[in-house]
Each structure stands twice: as C-alpha cells, then as structure tokens.
C-alpha cells in the first residue's frame, strides 16, 4: 500500500483549510445577509402597516383628543403620542351617535404601540397591538388647513403628519381628519 508523503498531506490540509475558510466565509456572509434582509423586510412590512393604520384612523376620527385618561394612565397628544376620538360603531358597523372610542398611537421605549379603548356601547374590541419592536423615533406634527399648512396645537389640527423611523427604515405620511 502506498502512503501519502508529508508534502501531499500538508498540501491537502492547506487546500482544505483554504476551501473550508472560504466556505465558512460564504456561510457567515450569507447568514448575515439573510438575517439583515429579513429584518429589513419585517421592518418594511411593519412600517407599511403602521402608517396605513395611522392614516386610516386619522381619516375616520372625529377629532384629535388633547388627552385621554384610562385607569391611572393619561395619554396626551404630542410629538410621540397621538390620541384620536373615533365614532363608536354597533355590531353592523353603523356609527353610534355621540359615543366615541379612543385610539392611541404611541412610543413605548423601542416599541410602536397601538391601543384602542372602546366605548361600552361599541362593538370594537379593546386592542393592545405592537407594530414594531425596533422603533427608533416617532414624530407627530399637528397641522391646520391653511395652504401651506401651519403647525398648530393638537386641539386645532385638521391634519396630522407622522414620521416613523425604525432601525433601517423611515416613513413619513400625512392624513386629514375627514370627520372634523
């Protein structure tokens, strides 16, 4: 039986190390790229969903509520919190006159949260939803109906501009209160 010379073993080991190293680099980079792109994708979907939800809620709301008290927690409309007063609806989705649910979008650390506080007559369910756990910053701007719009207090706003920054994505959108 023929054996391998020391030189052959060393060359084979060298090649194995180089090929193994390259393979490892490919796997690590691929995994990193996969992870990065997956996160970006998840963020992108979250930011789409969040801006869409905020826009629809603003359009439907009757007013921007300056503040809303739930239990011992007061939610106040400002740069990082938006409190909306939305007409309550019955089980057939018809509006119940003079009864309101409250929607709150706010920054909770690195989370972008959405809570609903339904009126007792409303068929809406109470919600506590997290749109993203990667929130970098959240900024609500309150504008009036002038052309160009001027920033005003939440109580006088007819339009809201929202800017959401997650770790890798930023989205800005705005909507008018259609029921104001």
């Amino acid at each position, binding site marked *: 039986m023929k054996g391998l010379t020391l030189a052959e073993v060393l060359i084979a080991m060298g090649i194995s190390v180089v090929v193994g190293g390259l393979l490892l680099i490919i796997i690590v980079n*691929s995994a990193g790229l*996969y992870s990065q792109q997956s996160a970006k994708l998840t963020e992108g979907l979250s930011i789409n969903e969040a801006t869409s939800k905020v826009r629809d809620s603003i359009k*439907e709301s009757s007013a921007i509520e300056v503040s809303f008290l739930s239990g011992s927690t007061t939610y106040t409309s400002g740069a990082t919190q938006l409190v909306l007063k939305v007409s309550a609806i019955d089980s057939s989705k018809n509006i119940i006159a003079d009864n309101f649910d409250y929607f709150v979008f706010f920054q909770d650390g690195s989370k972008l949260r959405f809570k609903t506080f339904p009126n007792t007559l409303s068929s809406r369910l109470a919600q506590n939803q997290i749109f993203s756990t990667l929130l970098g910053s959240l900024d609500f701007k309150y504008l009036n109906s002038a052309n160009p719009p001027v920033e005003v207090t939440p109580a006088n706003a007819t339009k809201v501009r929202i800017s959401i920054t997650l770790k890798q994505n930023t989205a800005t959108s705005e909507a008018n209160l259609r029921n104001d």
Partner: protein
Amino acid sequence: MINKEKGQILVVVFVALGVVLFTVLSIVAGAQVYFQNANYSLEAEKAIALAEAGIDKAITALNKTSGSFSGESETVLGDGTYSVTITSKDVATKIIEATGYIPSKDKARAKRTIKITASKGVGVSFVYGIQVGEGGLELGNNNQVQGTIYSNGNITAGNNNLITGDAWVAGGVQPNPDQQTDCEGSNCQDYIFGKNVNGQNRLDIAQSFKPSLTETLNKISIKIKKQGNPSDLTVRIMRDDDGKPDKNGVITNGTLFSNLVTGEYGWIDVTFNTSPQLLAETRYWLMIDTSADNSNFWIWQNDLAQSYTRGSPAFSADWSAKNPNWINFAVDLSFKTFMGGTITSIRGGSDFKVNNDVHANTIENLTIGKDAYFQTIINSTVAGNKHPSSADPPPKVFPISEANAMDWKNQAQANSLTTPVCGLTWGPGKYTGNVTIGNNCTITIKSPIWITGNLSLGNSNIFNLDSSFGSTSGVVVVDGIVTFGNTNKMQGTGIGSSLLMLLTTYDSRVNGQAAIDIGNTGNTGVFYASTGIIQPGNNNQYKELTAWKITLSNNSIINYETGLSSTLFTSGPSGSYTLVKGTYQVK
C-alpha cells in the same frame, strides 16, 4: 490504469452553492413579498382615493339633481373603477357608500369602501346650556343650569342658584356700530371672492377702517352670502403698512362660520379669540383669507357709491407671501365694527354657586368651585385659583344667524298653511296671522313652519316633529310673541339628537316685552330668540335656551344635552347636501 480515488471538492462546491442559492432565493422571495406588500398598500390607497372620488361625485350629483341621483354601478377612473350606492335615511339624509377597485370590480386586487352620511341641512352647534346676548341673564331663586352659561351681558341672580358648568360673562359690546358702511339700491353689487374672477386671484380680501375712539374691538359684522358650501373662514384684524395690510401685524383673528351664511345676503357676526385695543383715527384692516374653489366661494356685498370715507378695500392672491401684492379696487365692502368698553359682571344674592370656572370682569357674591378669572372680585369664595387682571372674555356669536332664519322662511313660503288641527300633521309652510291652540292638543310638525303672527298655546299641548325627519331637527319660526301655558312640549323625533326648535324673530330690544313667555311646570323644548327676551317660567325643563336676554324666575332647570353640539336642521332652498360630521367610515 484507472484512478478510483474520489474527489471531495465537488461536495464542498455544492454545499457552498446551496448556501448561496438559499440565501439568494430567500432574499429574492423576501423582496418579492415586500414588493407585493408595498404594491398592495399603494393600490389600497388608490382604491380609497377612487372611493372618495365616488363620494365627491355623488354629493355633487345629488345637489345637481335635487336629491334624485341614485348611484352608479361601475365607473372607470384612472387606474381603477368605483361604484356608488345611495340609500335614503330620511327626508333630508342620504347614506352614500362608495367602493374603489383596482383595477376593476370583477378582477379587484385592492378594494376599499367608504361610507358617509350626507344631509341637506344646516348644522347648528348649541355649545352652551344657556347662551345670552347683550341683554344678559337674570336668575330668580332656586334655579339650576346643568351645563355652561355664556353671556354677552351681565348675569344677576337671586338666592340659591346653581350652575354646574362654567359661567362666562363677555366684555360688554356697545349697542351701535363705531364704523359701518352699507349700500342702497342699484349701488349694491356682488363682489365674488374665494376663486379666480376675470383673471384676478381674489383669495384674500381686506377692507380698511379707522375707529373713531380708542377702545377694544369686540365684534364685526359683514354682509355676505355664499355659493355652494365653502369652509369656515378666518377673519383677521391687521395693522396698516403704508396703505396695505401688514402681514406681520395680525392683531387678532376669529372665525366666520359658514353655516351661518346662506345663499342670500345677511349680516353675519364675527367675534375674535381676543378683543384687541384699537387706537382712534388709526387705519386697520379686516382681512378674510380663503382658498381657491370654483364651486364653493363667497360673495361680499359692495357699494359702488363708495359712501365710506374712512377706508377702502383691496385683494391679494396670498396675504402671507414674502411680498404680498395688494390690489385696491374702487368700492366699499359692507361691514360694521362694534367696540367694547362696557364693564360687565356676574353678581348673586345668597348661595349662588358655580361648580366650575367663572370668567367675568367683575365677580360679586359667588361661591366658585374652581378658578376665577376677573379684574374685580367682591365677597366671593374661590376653591381653585384666582386670576386677577384677566382680560374680559370676547363675546360669542349666536349659533343661528338672521340669514338662517330667513332661509327657513323662504322654504316655508312655498306652501300656505291653514289653521292647525289637533291630531293631524301640520307643515311645512307659512301661516299668515296668529296661531292659538287651547289645551291637550297633539300636532305632528313637518318643518319648517313660519308663523307671521303670534303663537299662543294653552296647557298640555305637544308638538312632535314628524318621524320622517329621522335624526335631523325641525324648526317653527314665529315673527311675533310666543306664549306657553303649562306642560307644553316641543319634541324631536326621538331619534339621535333630533329636536324641534321654536325660534322667534321678535325684537324685545324696542319695548322690553318678552318674545317668549313660558308658564309654569312641565314645559320642555329648545327656544331661540336672538333679539328677544325669554321668560322661561318656573319648574320647567329645557334642553337649551338662546336669547338676547333671559329672565329665569324661580325653580327652573336647564339640562343641556351634549348631542346639541351637532344639531342638524333641514335647510332652505339654498341648502345643499354635505357630509354630516362624524360619519366618514373606511370599511
């Protein structure tokens, strides 16, 4: 010799390729998901825009067809289509449901539905339990107002009175205008603004004036009408800058409420957020700021004779531009300015309690549950904070204008009424002369009704608004004096915040005679007399009272309903379908 040794590199290459392929495919798939999601979001927004276009078109079509438009099955517009269905809720209200589809109804990738309620009505906002004009409020003994009072005149009270909300007493307004101009006969012309007219961008309109005395400006009136349904306007008082409004010299601003203006000229009051001090013989500008809209715009009455010698008008495309270009024109726009300077007060006998805040120049003999805002306070207890040297609150405009009342009269004019009969339906229409009803009579009312004389009710009569009015409200307009005995009820349909309002245009300021005189015990309703005195009697319950002056004698309760802040009345001929606030829903 055949070499049977196996190589390993191919396996390694396959593994590497597998990893790379997996990563690439995953990223491509993710990108595809993201692309589809983003695309769907975009298409959903387009579908909403299409549905909103359907709503806009439906409202326009309803107004053009006097309400007979019934919708459309599928109309192509831009990248998609929309469909509209219309359902009648009551005589004045339509429910419009519009759906936008991308790209079409049968192959919809995105679909959004918007539902609104549109009503041919005048929105009236009763914000206070009692709103009183310059005549003020006189309370006897043992009265209770469950809500807030806003009075442009003094509040004086006897013993044991309670206001559960706030009490506001505005700074006094002098009865006669300080500056005014109007036109006569053929000199009265229309000045259209809020759109481009003959190549002129008449968006911001201003009229200058010079006060004759140094005093606070409490109110202005302008003679105006509207076309379509333009939005509320901001009215600014500005300093003068070399013959034109000074864009950096806005002294105060107020709102001209569109719902007070009709298709016919009327004097519309505008009050301000703060009442500014103006200097005698100094030029100021009252300026109205609009946005261009060819369908919904304004018409200010002007005077070709230019009879006003202390000011002139100008227009601009943008008053707030870097260098606004103001163009003078040779007419006078009809306006009045009312100065303040009269000290007003809220004074009580013993045990006059206000549960919340009190705002008045002078406060005397009150027990205040929260804060007090004043310049003088005498013999009063304040549980909250005292705010001395507070500016007088500005007066508030009434929620219904003379033009609104005239609009209802015009609508009623089309049909002449005979004497009402108990148990039957009465109206809509005009009744010439006095109406006298005895006792125990129930009448169903179809609004609007205009009575040119007096209205007199005995005891236990009921006026019910016809059920076809649904959640909207109705009105009985009386030119003369209204007299109620006991236990008479003015009732809406019972749906939502519907109410039946009794409005009189009688002017009590001339002779001090009450415009609405209500007996004792069990009378209910909403009563309105912007130039009259209401004497609400004893032991009655009212949802809302608005008058130039109110004399509440003893033991009455005013129980304000929150729903009255968005009351909708069926409108006159100039009314058109508009979105009912709070009914926009994305489904």
